[in-house]
């Protein structure tokens, strides 16, 4: 038998290994159990036949396996504008903005400050305009609105400034989940319409190791029941909240995801769910969180593989470079971080636009990340091998020394055959000098400024905008 290459092992691992991760995590869930802070979740487990002792639930493996069989393997993420609907069918990897950073490098002053709702609005606008960004997300935390109303303001900021599907996180209670559902329902004509065409989805983070957030899980139950796609997203950190070894970390990640997804299926059979994960590593020298080490990228690639192992749609954490400024480190780290999970068939990459381990927003980074995504996407597009594309007649006619530049065949095919980058420099040295020796971050900045000044999101009827604003002010004032 031919030896498989190491690349093949990474991109298409031995199913036996994936099966080992599966069986080890089920064994952990059955013998050691997992903590569910939510009483509601524990009650559901108890009724389903799991053992509940205090806040720890021990789940028979068969319960998890049975529940996972009910998960739909494909569904569509709808867009408010009706144009950018995204079928999750295992054939394409969609790119989403990263989420919930706490700081922004102010676009005008360049000063690092606390993030605001305005940042979310501006970034939604940029994402709406960028063809490579498929999904809009509250990319920072809206720290200038009351904490009790943050999640509705963040969702509204995305929905009003973009026509694309919105992916939210940081919802920490059933009540907040209901509020987001109610808000989105306003825009599509009610709860049932929203169930038919969910224009947003959500994911909830676990608290690694082996703990499910109380309010977060109750929010997930709420979303699942309303037909809003919902994911479970561990961020286990190798060596701190999971074993230092990658196999052990993946086992912890898998146990957390499948236990919560099984719960959602038991509560709402057939609920639309995502297998998610953004496991990371520490820097051994400092303990610093690192999302773009080679090992973290391997883990995230494995998240995509495990999702496919179960036949589930996935949201995979990507990007989130440790670099503090846009530039070379951000580019090399994020390129690899986007590439590997895409090649592993992730449904959605969550992670464009932030620096400093998802802690810092700069407006330029979204455009720079989108440039990487566009190149990857282009590389994975099927290439035309038709007779017309082989162009043998033309090659015969022109023969040795021919020039193809002015041929009708060239004119007919050039736009589909070759792509044009948004940002990358392909000028001659002299042209580059004449244009002011611009670096690409500066070009991204100019483009961001242009988009923000000119782009109009798909319009919304005035009465809908008013309804959203009234909802926001009523919700905010009720505290």
């Amino acid at each position: 038998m031919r030896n498989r290459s190491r690349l093949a092992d990474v991109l298409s691992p031995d199913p036996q290994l994936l099966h080992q991760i599966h069986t080890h995590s089920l064994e952990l869930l059955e013998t050691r159990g997992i903590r569910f802070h939510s009483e509601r979740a524990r009650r559901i487990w108890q009724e389903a036949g799991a053992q509940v002792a205090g806040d720890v639930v021990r789940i028979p493996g068969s319960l998890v396996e049975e529940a996972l069989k009910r998960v739909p393997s494909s569904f569509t993420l709808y867009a408010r504008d009706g144009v950018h609907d995204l079928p999750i069918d295992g054939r394409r990897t969609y790119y989403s903005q990263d989420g919930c950073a706490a700081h922004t490098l102010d676009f005008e002053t360049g000063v690092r400050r606390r993030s605001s709702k305005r940042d979310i609005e501006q970034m939604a606008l940029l994402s709406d305009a960028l063809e490579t960004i498929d999904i809009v997300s509250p990319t920072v935390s809206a720290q200038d609105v009351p904490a009790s109303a943050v999640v509705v303001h963040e969702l509204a900021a995305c929905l009003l400034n973009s026509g694309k599907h919105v992916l939210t996180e940081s919802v920490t209670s059933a009540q907040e989940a209901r509020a987001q559902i109610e808000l989105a329902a306003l825009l599509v004509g009610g709860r049932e319409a929203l169930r038919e065409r969910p224009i947003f989805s959500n994911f909830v983070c676990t608290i690694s190791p082996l703990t499910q957030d109380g309010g977060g899980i109750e929010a997930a139950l709420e979303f699942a029941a309303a037909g809003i796609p919902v994911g479970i997203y561990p961020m286990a950190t190798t060596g701190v909240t999971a074993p230092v070894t990658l196999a052990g970390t993946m086992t912890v990640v898998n146990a957390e995801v499948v236990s919560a997804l099984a719960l959602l299926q038991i509560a709402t059979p057939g609920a639309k769910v995502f297998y998610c994960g953004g496991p990371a590593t520490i820097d051994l020298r400092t303990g610093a969180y690192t999302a773009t080490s080679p090992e973290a990228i391997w883990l995230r690639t494995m998240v995509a593989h495990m999702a496919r192992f179960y036949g589930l749609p996935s949201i995979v954490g990507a990007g989130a470079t440790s670099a503090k400024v846009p530039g070379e480190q951000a580019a090399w780290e994020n390129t690899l971080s986007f590439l590997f999970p895409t090649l592993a068939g992730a449904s959605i990459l969550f992670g464009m636009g932030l620096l400093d381990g998802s802690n810092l927003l700069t407006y330029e980074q979204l455009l720079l990340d989108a440039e990487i995504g566009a190149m990857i996407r282009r590389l994975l597009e099927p290439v035309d091998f038709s007779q017309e594309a082989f162009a043998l007649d033309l090659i015969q006619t022109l023969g040795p020394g021919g020039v193809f530049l002015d041929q009708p065949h060239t004119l007919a095919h050039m736009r589909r055959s070759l792509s044009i980058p948004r940002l990358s420099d392909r000028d001659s040295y002299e042209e580059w000098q004449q244009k002011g020796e611009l670096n690409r971050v500066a070009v991204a900045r100019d483009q961001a400024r242009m988009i923000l000044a000119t782009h109009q999101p798909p319009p919304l009827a005035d009465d809908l905008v008013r309804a959203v604003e009234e909802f926001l002010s009523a919700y905010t004032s009720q505290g």
Partner: protein
Amino acid sequence: MTDILAKIASSLYNGQSEEVASLVQQALDQGLSPHQVLQGGLIAGMDEVGRDFKAGELFVPEVLIAARAMHAGMNVLRPLLAESDVPSIGKYVIGTVKGDLHDIGKNLVKMMLEGAGFETVDLGTDVDPQTFVNAVREHRPKIMGMSALLTTTMVQMKATIDALVEAGVRDSVKIMVGGAPVTAAFATQIGADAYAPDAASAVDVARALVS
């Protein structure tokens, strides 16, 4: 005689808790004074750990197990040392603020502080302002540290400081804050005394606060 002190220091460096405890006992049995064992064995070993950590030769997990070995040795020595000899720099009350269940960063800081000689009182997660106030009253710590991971819970840091002011104990304690969304500017704005961006620098900041 100094042989055994060197052994204590190197066992501590290697994080061998049981070894350190029994060597400390052995050294005392040989007639060394508690003070000699502390200075020449435990502290000498910990100093070497600190040096090599700064030089990038030791990693965070190695520092943690060395700190644990230091504790094992101190458990043998403490009853024999005069109060003034015990290298407790001071008490440190620590907790994750109300509404926040994330404790990994807080636990790391606690372990590093203990390694540096602080005596810690860990209030756990989801700690409401009143519990912090009560702990400050009861334990009279030199420093109180608060952690938050969520932007929606970091406001509780201010609420807790307000509660300390209200209770009249704010000035009895230095307040440190930390966690991913927290910045030095935020710390100043809410009236905290100090901020540290990570566990290793938290130790330096805490040392500076009590020196």
